[in-house]
């Protein structure tokens, strides 16, 4: 019964990945990275239940934290390195 959500999450991750590849602006990519990260957290939680060892949820917690921190990091470093160029190609 955990298989169906897992498969759906994989599909969602694929879509987010496609958005990250395509993303016309950099913010789209950041958004895709964030979405990808949250979906990975859910996927890992579900994989833990699939494998029958739910004690490994620590990893999902780390993911949630690290994802937040890296998104903040991207925003902070992107913010004042280039105020004017939003579009990717110069």
């Amino acid at each position, binding site marked *: 019964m955990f298989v169906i959500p897992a498969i759906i999450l994989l599909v969602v991750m694929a*879509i987010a990945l496609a*958005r990250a590849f395509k993303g016309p602006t950099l913010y789209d990519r950041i958004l895709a990275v964030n979405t990808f990260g949250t979906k990975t957290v859910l996927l890992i939680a579900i994989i833990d239940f699939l494998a029958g060892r739910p004690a490994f949820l620590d990893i999902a*917690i780390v993911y949630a934290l690290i*994802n937040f921190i890296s998104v903040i990091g991207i925003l902070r470093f992107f913010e004042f390195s280039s105020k004017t160029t939003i579009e990717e190609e110069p």
Partner: protein
Amino acid sequence: MDILLDILSWILLISGSFFTFTGAVGLFRFPDFFSRTHAASVTDTLGAGLILIGLMLQAGWGLVLAKLLLILVFSLLASTTACHAMAKAALKSGLKPLTYSDQENSAEETTSKH
């Protein structure tokens, strides 16, 4: 009682996955960054919350439940805040939301470009 819990968590898991999926479709199909943020963040909260609650019903009392609760709190706090910060940063850097009049003018243009 167990069967009832199973059915309930099954429903929650499936509906959560459904909402997540809609969010992904929105993320992919919507025309500009702000509407994509909207799609991603709103469904993120609901979908993740439903899936995690569904898993909690399976977990039973114990450390696992506490950890799932922690993940829920983190994801509720972190993902929404990150989306807010992202939208704010994008607005500040000069990215304009697509308004209705823009859309009429440049609908063909944007769809053909991407």
